[in-house]
């Protein structure tokens, strides 16, 4: 039990697998966007080189800013994302942690909260603006995320990830998965919901004052977010039966397909304003709220 938990945390789908997978997904997104713009795009090892280069930079000492606190935020993001990766029900036939989806949601929310706090702690105007935008966008899309989880839980009758990972033909399950998938662009700060880390508009937003190893951790957290969020959607869709190695492979493949779909949407759209992003999420939230409540009532009186 403990050994399989440690394997899940550090080996697969934990540290050793998640970090290269995150780099691979980041490369996939950049390459797909480049090909869609008739460019060549970066080589395969580019995110790895970026990471190593950023680790090796010497950041100057700045007074007036809590440098230790600033360095803490990306570390907390990375650690909580690694924990979220370990919780994913990649092989739900009794291996690994048997966590519940609420814990997973909390762990997936930590990077966003750290991003907001980093923006306010960095002491720069651009950081504040980016943090405010991220906070408002977070309120909008977390409502949809939570309602999707509630829909999933109510239709399946359980919060446990291992049980949720067994697929079903219940439409409530698929509405919930769709809701989670719709929140992914906002959590990853992709177009069209990239208003909080708008480069050249607010000079990278909350990450403006970061450099060196802390920035490397933020980029790593971004890659891990890719893997965790797309992995969550994949594990909730794919069937649980089959050979023990087949399901992780299919989860990875389906996650990569999602990366391609999200990159296409990111390449095709421009940046929504904050008002428009909120309007998008709250319209869908209304739909999901109605479906969640109606399915709960159906289950109650069935």
């Amino acid at each position, binding site marked *: 039990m403990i050994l399989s938990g440690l394997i899940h945390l550090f080996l697969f789908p934990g540290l050793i697998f998640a970090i290269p997978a995150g780099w691979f997904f980041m490369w996939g997104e950049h390459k797909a966007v480049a*090909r*869609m713009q*008739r*460019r*060549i795009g970066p080589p395969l090892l580019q995110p790895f080189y970026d990471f190593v280069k950023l680790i090796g930079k010497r950041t100057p000492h700045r007074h007036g800013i809590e440098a230790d606190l600033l360095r803490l935020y990306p570390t907390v993001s990375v650690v909580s994302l690694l924990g979220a990766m370990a919780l994913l029900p990649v092989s739900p036939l009794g291996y690994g942690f048997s966590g519940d989806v609420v814990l997973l949601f909390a762990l997936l929310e930590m990077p966003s909260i750290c991003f907001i706090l980093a923006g306010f702690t960095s002491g720069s105007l651009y950081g504040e603006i980016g943090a405010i935008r991220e906070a408002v966008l977070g309120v909008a899309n977390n409502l949809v995320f939570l309602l999707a989880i509630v829909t999933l839980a109510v239709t399946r009758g359980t919060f446990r990830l291992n049980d949720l990972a067994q697929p079903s033909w219940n439409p409530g399950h698929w509405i919930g998965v769709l809701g989670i998938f719709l929140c992914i662009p906002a959590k990853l700060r992709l177009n069209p919901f990239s208003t909080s880390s708008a480069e050249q508009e607010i000079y990278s937003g909350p990450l403006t004052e970061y450099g060196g190893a802390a920035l490397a951790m933020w980029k790593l957290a971004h890659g891990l977010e890719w893997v965790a969020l797309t992995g969550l959607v994949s594990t909730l869709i794919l069937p649980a039966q089959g050979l023990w190695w087949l399901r992780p492979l299919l989860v990875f493949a389906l996650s990569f397909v999602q990366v391609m779909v999200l990159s296409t949407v990111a390449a095709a759209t421009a940046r929504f304003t904050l008002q428009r992003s909120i309007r998008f999420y709250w319209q869908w939230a209304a739909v999901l709220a109605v479906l969640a409540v109606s399915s709960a009532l159906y289950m109650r009186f069935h």
Partner: protein
Amino acid sequence: MNIFRLIFDNLRRGVVSQRLPHQHQCTSDEYRGLIRNDAERCIGCAACCYACPTGAIEVVRSGDNYSWSYDPGKCTFCACCIARCKPNTLTMESKLPPLYSRQGDLRQVLNMVRKRPARPAVAAAPTPAPTPTAATTQGSNPPPAAAQ
């Protein structure tokens, strides 16, 4: 959904970028590159020096020796010097100027001696020029207008 059609067309038509690093120069024949002076034919009139708006070309004379220097770091590649060069000794390269790491690295200096043109031998005494007569002036013509 025009954007998705555009993306699909882009994926179908393929990559339009050049592969880096590449070795060939992708400049045309009319590219404005570095200035080259022909030391054999330069006569030291310094018209290029007067025409240059940035002072990239300098001509320093002492007697019959003069030095023509050109600093690409100051050049704006306007080709005014080539337009004013009387013997047409200045030409422009059509390849990219090289990179350098210190100011004045690419400066080139040519030290030349002024070539005086050979005078023909004097054969006979020149005939005196005709003097202007008073019959050409009739009435009071207004003085000619100053040159614009």
